[in-house]
C-alpha cells in the first residue's frame, strides 16, 4: 500500500516546530518588533542570476488581462516597502519558494524567518541573531571571521588578490572538475561551499562577513581595511550548515535598478529568462528606505539543528515528494 499520504515528519517533530515558533514569536514580541504578513505572490521577482522563481499566471475575476506572478523567493521586497512606509522594525515567518533547490537540506517550498531593524548596523544585528539562536539552540561559542580571512586560513589564498587562473586551478584541484572557464565568482562560490563551509560552526555559531562586492545582492558596499570594495553583509553557520544571511540594506534606488539590470544581463548570458524587476520596490526606495539592516534565517534548518536531524523532510509535515 502506498504510504506517501503519511507525513514526512514524525508528529513529535511537528510539536517541536510549534514550540519553536512560539519561542520565536515571543522573542520578537519582547523586543517590540511588529509581526507582519506580506504577499507570497508578487508582480516582481528576484533577478538574482542564481535563483529561479516559480511562476504562475492569474486571470479572470474582472481582470482585463492575465498577470504573471512570481512566488516570492523571500519576502524582502514587500518588507522593504513596509519599512519605506514607516513600519519601524518588522519580522515575519514567510513561506518562500525556489525552483531547482531540493535536497536533504532544501525543500523548494520552505519557511523563511526574516526581520529588519532600522538604525541597526551589522554588528548589532549579528548580536541579535546570536540571541535568537541561543533561545532555540542554547548557548554556544561564537566566532567571527572575514570572508577573505577564511580563504587565507583554509586555502592559503586571498580571493580578492588571487588571479582568476589561480582560482580556477584551486577550484579544479579541490572540486575535481574542469573549472577552466568558470568566472571568479563561481570559483569562489565552489571553494567556499565545498572546502570552507563544511568546517564552519563546528565549535559554535560562526559569522562570516565582508563578502566580495560581486556578491552584494541587495547589500551596501563599503571599503575594508585593505581598501578593497566589499559587500556589507554576513552569513551565519552552525555545524557546517548555512543558517542566515544578513545585509546592511542598499537604499539607493539608482544603484538598485542598476543591479537589477546587471542581474538580468547575466541571466541572458546564462540562457535564463529575465525577471520582471520590482518597480514598486524601486518606487519605495525613491520614497525613502530608512537606514536599516535585515536578515533572513532558514527556519526549517534551525529546526533540523534543534532536532538533531540531517534530512529536512523530517521537520516538514509534507515534503515536496508528498505535497
Amino acid at each position: 500500500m502506498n504510504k506517501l499520504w503519511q507525513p514526512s515528519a514524525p508528529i513529535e517533530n511537528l510539536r517541536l516546530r510549534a514550540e519553536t515558533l512560539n519561542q520565536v514569536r515571543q522573542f520578537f514580541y519582547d523586543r517590540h518588533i511588529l509581526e507582519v504578513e506580506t504577499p507570497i505572490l508578487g508582480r516582481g521577482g528576484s533577478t538574482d542570476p542564481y535563483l529561479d522563481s516559480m511562476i504562475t499566471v492569474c486571470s479572470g475575476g474582472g481582470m482585463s488581462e492575465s498577470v504573471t506572478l512570481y512566488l516570492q523567493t523571500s519576502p524582502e521586497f514587500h518588507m522593504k516597502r513596509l519599512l519605506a512606509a514607516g513600519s519601524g522594525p518588522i519580522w515575519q515567518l514567510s513561506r518562500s519558494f525556489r525552483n531547482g533547490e531540493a535536497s536533504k537540506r532544501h525543500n523548494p517550498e520552505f519557511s523563511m524567518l526574516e526581520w529588519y531593524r532600522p538604525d541597526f548596523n551589522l554588528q548589532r544585528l549579528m548580536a541579535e541573531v546570536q540571541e535568537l539562536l541561543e533561545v532555540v539552540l542554547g548557548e554556544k561559542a561564537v566566532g567571527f571571521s572575514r570572508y577573505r580571512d577564511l580563504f587565507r586560513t583554509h586555502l592559503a589564498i586571498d580571493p580578492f588578490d588571487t588571479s582568476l587562473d589561480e582560482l580556477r586551478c584551486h577550484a579544479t584541484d579541490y572540486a575535481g572538475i574542469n573549472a577552466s572557464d568558470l568566472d571568479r565568482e563561481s570559483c569562489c562560490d565552489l571553494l567556499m561551499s565545498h572546502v570552507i563551509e563544511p568546517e564552519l560552526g563546528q565549535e559554535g555559531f560562526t559569522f562570516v562577513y565582508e563578502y566580495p562586492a560581486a556578491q552584494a545582492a541587495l547589500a551596501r558596499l563599503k571599503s575594508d581595511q585593505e581598501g578593497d570594495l566589499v559587500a556589507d553583509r554576513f552569513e551565519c553557520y552552525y555545524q557546517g550548515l548555512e543558517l542566515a544571511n544578513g545585509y546592511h540594506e542598499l537604499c539607493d534606488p539608482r544603484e538598485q535598478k542598476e543591479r537589477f539590470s546587471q542581474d538580468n544581463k547575466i541571466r541572458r548570458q546564462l540562457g535564463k529568462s529575465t525577471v520582471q524587476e520590482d518597480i514598486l520596490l524601486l518606487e519605495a526606495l525613491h520614497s525613502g528606505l530608512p537606514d536599516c539592516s535585515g536578515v533572513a534565517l532558514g527556519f526549517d534548518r534551525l529546526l533540523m539543528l534543534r532536532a538533531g536531524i540531517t534530512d529536512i523532510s523530517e521537520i516538514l509535515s509534507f515534503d515536496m515528494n508528498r505535497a
Partner: protein
Amino acid sequence: MDKILTKTITWSFVGYILQAVRKKEVYQVVIRPESIGENEKSFNFK
C-alpha cells in the same frame, strides 16, 4: 559507498550542470538527485 568515490560522482554531476549552463542548454533541475549530496552552492537566504 566509499566517501571519496561518492564525492567524485557528486562532482561529476556538478560539472555536468555547469557545462550544461555554459552551453546555454535548456536545463531545469526540479529535484536534485541524492548524488548531489550536501555540497551545494551557497543557498543565500534572503
